[in-house]
């Protein structure tokens, strides 16, 4: 059984741990690896994976063949992955260099639709001083990239099943069942344009049920609505129903994303969930002070809108731009137009998911590369 070690550094929020967990689980459950996931902040991972007991002895076998701990095993694995910003401890690096057969060493990067990514995907990076070669694995949505991680409980369950659960979502909050209104997941970072979103949705006039998981938007939303959000409680705001949801585990959250009519997602983990579930989305990209995220956003919009009618493509791009530069008026103006396109957007989103699937799942592509290099 090949052994894999994944290193994860939690920078902030839950995306780093969430992505590392999904990759680790896919390698263990679907590709027969004995996986050891090393996380520097176990409490963050435990919030997403309730079966992880942080108080117990480590490493802990959380799933069959998947151990979680704070330190790697002493013997180097066959496959070593630095997830996102993680870096290897120097002693582990030295052990890798001394191994009779050096591990296949990857960096699992953030996804991007920018043109340069395919040119860097899986290019070698021979270590300047050690007999080791690292490779940069770029998840992506375009040819030449590594595809995406998808799925909830089973990271490689057929996409058809995901879309089936999308049509008949089981874990939808009870308040939604039996209602015919539009359901919207609201899961951005802090976003000053949220007041524009609420105003625009109200103006749309068809009513909407907003599901707002506990998170960074709560204080702003509370201030906007002049109410105190409380997990489990639904409050009316004009034609909108605002339902505050408690923090939930990753699997339940993935099903929630797949079950709504519009998913306002953020960062990377929930964004990938929405892309692969074929759900209409509004992406709040991780903001960077130097504005580097906007080029990435533009590249995504350009790629995602391929095949859209020009009118829809324009609204998609304008809304995403406004949402990400916190342009309240721009969001208010564009969200009703966007809502009017929802059926068409869903068909487009499902087509995009199928296209991305043709790139192969990221875990599968890593396993294929491992087999080629090893």
């Amino acid at each position: 059984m090949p052994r894999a070690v994944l290193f994860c550094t939690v920078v902030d929020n839950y995306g780093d741990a969430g992505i590392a967990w999904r990759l680790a689980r896919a390698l263990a459950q679907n590709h027969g690896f004995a996986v050891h996931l090393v996380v520097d902040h176990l409490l963050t991972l435990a919030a997403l994976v309730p079966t992880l007991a942080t108080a117990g002895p480590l490493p802990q076998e959380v799933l069959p063949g998947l151990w979680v701990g704070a330190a790697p095993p002493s013997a180097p694995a066959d496959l070593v992955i630095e997830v996102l910003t993680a870096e290897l401890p120097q002693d582990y690096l030295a052990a890798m260099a001394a191994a009779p057969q050096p591990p296949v060493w990857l960096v699992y990067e953030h996804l991007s639709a920018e043109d340069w990514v395919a040119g860097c995907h899986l290019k070698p990076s021979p270590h300047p001083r050690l007999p080791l070669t690292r490779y940069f694995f770029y998840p992506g949505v375009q040819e030449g990239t590594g595809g995406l991680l998808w799925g909830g409980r089973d990271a490689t369950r057929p996409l058809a099943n995901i879309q089936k659960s999308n049509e008949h979502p089981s874990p939808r909050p009870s308040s939604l069942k039996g209602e015919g209104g539009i359901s919207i997941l609201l899961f951005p970072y802090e976003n000053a344009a949220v007041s524009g979103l609420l105003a625009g949705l109200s103006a749309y006039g068809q009513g909407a049920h907003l599901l707002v998981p506990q998170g960074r938007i709560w204080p702003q939303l509370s201030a906007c609505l002049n109410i105190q959000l409380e997990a489990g409680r639904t409050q009316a705001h004009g034609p909108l129903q605002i339902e505050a949801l408690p923090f939930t585990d990753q699997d339940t959250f993935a099903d929630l994303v797949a079950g709504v009519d519009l998913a306002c997602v953020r960062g990377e983990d929930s964004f990938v969930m929405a892309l692969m579930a074929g759900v209409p989305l509004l992406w709040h990209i991780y903001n960077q002070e130097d504005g580097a995220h906007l080029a990435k956003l533009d590249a995504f919009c350009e790629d995602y809108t391929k095949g859209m009618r020009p009118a829809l493509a324009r609204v998609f791009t304008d809304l995403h731009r406004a949402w990400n530069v916190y342009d309240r008026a721009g969001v208010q103006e564009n969200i009703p137009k966007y809502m009017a396109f929802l059926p068409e957007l869903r068909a487009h989103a499902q087509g995009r998911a199928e296209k991305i699937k043709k790139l192969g799942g990221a875990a599968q592509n890593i396993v294929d590369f491992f087999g080629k290099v090893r």
Partner: protein
Amino acid sequence: MKIAQELRSGNVIMIGNEPWVVKKAEFNKSGRNAAVMKMKLQSLLKGTLTETVYKADEKFEDVILDKKDVTYSYFADPAYVFMDSEYNQHEVDAETLGEGAHFLDEGMACEMTFYNGRGISVELPTTVIREIEYTEPAVRGDTSGKVLKVARMVGGLELKVPAFCEIGEKIEIDTRTGEYKNRAK
């Protein structure tokens, strides 16, 4: 030490025990992705080319290579022999010289680069003059230089020259590209 982001075309770095010259360096950064340098490298020992990607802060030992002024002496199959100002002879093979071998003239002043005492590259003057030994007759009226024809130089080198060039004429050739520059004055 230099970090990857500081590397430019022409820099020489060590990877393992091998010196590599940077042929092309391209910086990429977006969003939360690690800033990376995509580089085309050429081994100074084997001549092999490779494309690599490094984190922008990866540290490299940069190599300062010895350089000497030399003059080309003669060809002693399979090596080209150059002489420095102290009359030491240095041999370089045809693979190292590449296309430059076509432009060597006895007594030509060049610059040789050494690694561990061994000549690994030769920089020729950027321009050499050659006489056209044969080409099709000149085309009257076309002086634009845009219409090209093949010409053979004395010594056997063939390249494309403007249609107005004639047999016996001397031309300047760019040794970096191997292309016609202009008529010799």
